[in-house]
């Protein structure tokens, strides 16, 4: 509207502004609420499924509230508590060690790559970036880890491949570039700090939001990892939790689809629907509790990256 504004219309617009704000908030809140409910409902279904008896699930399907309350699912999960606990232990171990180590390596790499006085930073950056475009594929990767590094059935193989992700290195580089001004580094140098001193006392402290963000990415990656277990771990005591769960599910699918032509009968017991649901709850539990505590850094980290480019 290109009409000239007078005082009269201005009050009107102000009124309309507040109305508009109110309307906007109303719409925004209802959209968010609906979306949240959509996210919550499946989880509720799983929760109620885990507290239902298996018979009732197969017979009448899932309900938001258990029609036939029972704890048999959880009983089943904890009949072999050692297996579940072992898998838990492995996952917690790989997550903690992998995230800590990964953060060290990624922040160091990011710090070095953004230093203007590092001559080959573009070459190195290109090499890292190049791998995101052209991967060797699954078979070479497998051969590398299995035959050349001899990492079958080790804890190393669960941690090592996920330590440095090109994407996270590039993210970290940009974080550090925006959070640590070059002048600061120069003045620290003049004051006699060496590179490690600068890294430990300045960079790590200033890049904290970024570290929290990348750390969460890493931790989630390790927590949800099942593929590495699937390929490189033969010893059931070393399965990661997610793979332990996923594998149980897959056994059922296998029996259903493959056993048709193969005539295979498997001797182990197939977990029931309610057991599957109980397992899902047991697996996601800890991360659910952890998330709210980390989330605040997460948001901060993302905005810092956004505002300062």
């Amino acid at each position: 509207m290109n009409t000239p504004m007078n005082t009269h219309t201005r009050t009107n617009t102000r009124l309309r502004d507040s109305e508009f704000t109110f309307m906007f908030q109303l719409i925004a809140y209802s959209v968010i609420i609906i979306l949240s409910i959509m996210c919550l409902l499946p989880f509720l279904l799983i929760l109620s499924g885990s507290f239902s008896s298996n018979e009732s699930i197969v017979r009448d399907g899932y309900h938001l509230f258990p029609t036939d309350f029972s704890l048999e699912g959880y009983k089943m999960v904890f009949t072999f508590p050692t297996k579940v606990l072992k898998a838990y232990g492995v996952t917690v171990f790989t997550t903690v060690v992998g995230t800590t180590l990964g953060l060290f390596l990624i922040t160091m790499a990011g710090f070095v790559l953004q230093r203007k006085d590092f001559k080959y930073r573009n070459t190195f950056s290109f090499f890292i970036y190049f791998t995101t475009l052209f991967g060797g594929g699954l078979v070479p990767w497998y051969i590398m880890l299995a035959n050349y590094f001899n990492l079958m059935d080790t804890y190393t193989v669960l941690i090592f491949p996920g330590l440095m992700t090109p994407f996270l290195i590039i993210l970290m580089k940009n974080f550090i570039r925006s959070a640590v001004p070059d002048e600061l580094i120069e003045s620290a140098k003049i004051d006699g700090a060496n590179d490690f001193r600068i890294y430990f006392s300045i960079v790590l402290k200033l890049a904290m939001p970024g570290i929290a963000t990348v750390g969460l990415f890493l931790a989630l990656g390790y927590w949800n990892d099942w593929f590495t277990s699937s390929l490189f771990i033969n010893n059931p005591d070393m399965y990661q939790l997610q793979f332990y769960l996923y594998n149980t599910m897959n056994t059922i699918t296998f029996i259903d689809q493959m056993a048709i032509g193969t005539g295979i009968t498997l001797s182990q017991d197939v977990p029931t629907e309610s057991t599957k649901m109980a397992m899902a709850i047991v697996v996601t539990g800890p991360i659910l509790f952890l998330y709210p505590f980390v989330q605040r850094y997460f948001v901060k980290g993302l905005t810092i990256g956004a505002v300062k480019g």
Partner: protein
Amino acid sequence: MRNKTIRHLSLVLALMLFAGVLAACNNGSGGSTQGSEQGGASESKGEKVTLQFYMLGDAPKDLPVIESEINKLAEADLNVNVKFNYTSWTDWDQKYKLLLSSGQPIDLIFTADWTFYQSYAKKGAFLPLDEMLPTAAPALKAHVPEDMWNAVKINDKIYTVPSTWIEYVTEGIAYREDLREKYNLPKPESLETLEAYLEGIKANEPNMIPIADSNANHTHGIRQLTSKLVNTAGQLPYGLDIMYDSPSTVSSYWGSAQHLEDLKTYKRWMDKGFFPKNVLNVKDTSNSLLQNGKAAVVLSGENPNKFNADVIKVQSTHPDWKLAYFPYPNAKGFAQPVHPIHNGFAIPRSSKNPEKALAFYEKLVTDKRYNWLTEYGVEGKNFEVDNGYYKMVGDAQTNGFPREGMNGWAWRNPEFMLYDKTFDDVLTMFEDLDKIKKPDIFTGFAEDWTPYQAEKAALEQVEKQYLYPLNVGLVADVEAGLNTFMEKAKQAGLEKIQAEYTKQWQEYLKSAGIQ
């Protein structure tokens, strides 16, 4: 000064931590790399080697116990140790491929028709055993009959040691007999009687789903019921038809008048409510639906063994129900026992100790101590022999090694086999099928899909998108739907695939001397 020390210390610590993780617990890998490099030293025991043994599926809980027991025996007899590895069922096919293509040292691996033994053998993934057998495993060579050795030959070479236990994995209709009696319905033994039975179920038990099969699997069963297909289970790939009595004639079932008629039948069934509306998205296994009384009939995948498992399950949970079984071979007029390729063990090319591996496998099959340990576990701890029957100690929850817990299908030995008492019914079924036995002429065929790999993938997509809905009667105009499917399939390269497959099949018939 002190700051400097601390800084250095922390740096050193960080480096040590990193190195420590890299070198952490390097156990259990590369066991067979220390193997003796000298081939043909099968006479002397040589130095001790560790064999890498690979099997599909999940390891039983007590595997470490069994492994140490076996190693005690194997060390005394052959001076070898064995490491049993299990791939788990997650992406097992991808892992199988990696194991065979990555060149990591593996000494023994499971083979079957459904793990594509024929094409892997053709591609040279396994070592030929012909020359090794008489020297390294004479007892094993004698144990397996000559015709079985011949049956597993690919390009005139033996690449796998077949299992000698003869079983049937033919399918049949599993249905609720008690409901049939209650409502006085016909026995489902043909397409007409099956439909009448399903109608009766629908009318009298409105809360039940008549047909339990998900993913349009029922079509496999129906094809077995109404035609004399050359294969024992399911349908032939790429919509082809090859009948047992005239194997050299290959025709296309897809797009034929018969196909249209069948699809119209499925449409009628859907309209009558024999399938649930969301049949393509059902995730429950057909067996669990039958066992829990949610469905009345299972049409595909029910082989004698599986049906027996259903019966046992239902007896324990609903003793008042009754299940009955109609084997498709009775409709076909003949039954084919599994082909020797169906269960076997091969030695991959990457093996460092092929002779030792073969000698060990001989022990596994022909030595009762090894065989019972790996099939049934430790006697007294995992199982007992009761009147010649196998009896589990405790139950599936407490027992760390159920019957055949190591998935030892390939090294079953009929002389030593122990059956559970409940298995008697299956053996009776096998005896009935034995009466109409005919040799399997299909499984020896090794399909090589390299010439049409891309078309094959494209066709699978088309099948999912256009044929599945037809199979469960979700398309209003069947004829138009079939035409659309055929058109899309031809675009995906159906004709090329069918022609190539036919050519390979004819060549196989010629070389195998089948008319």
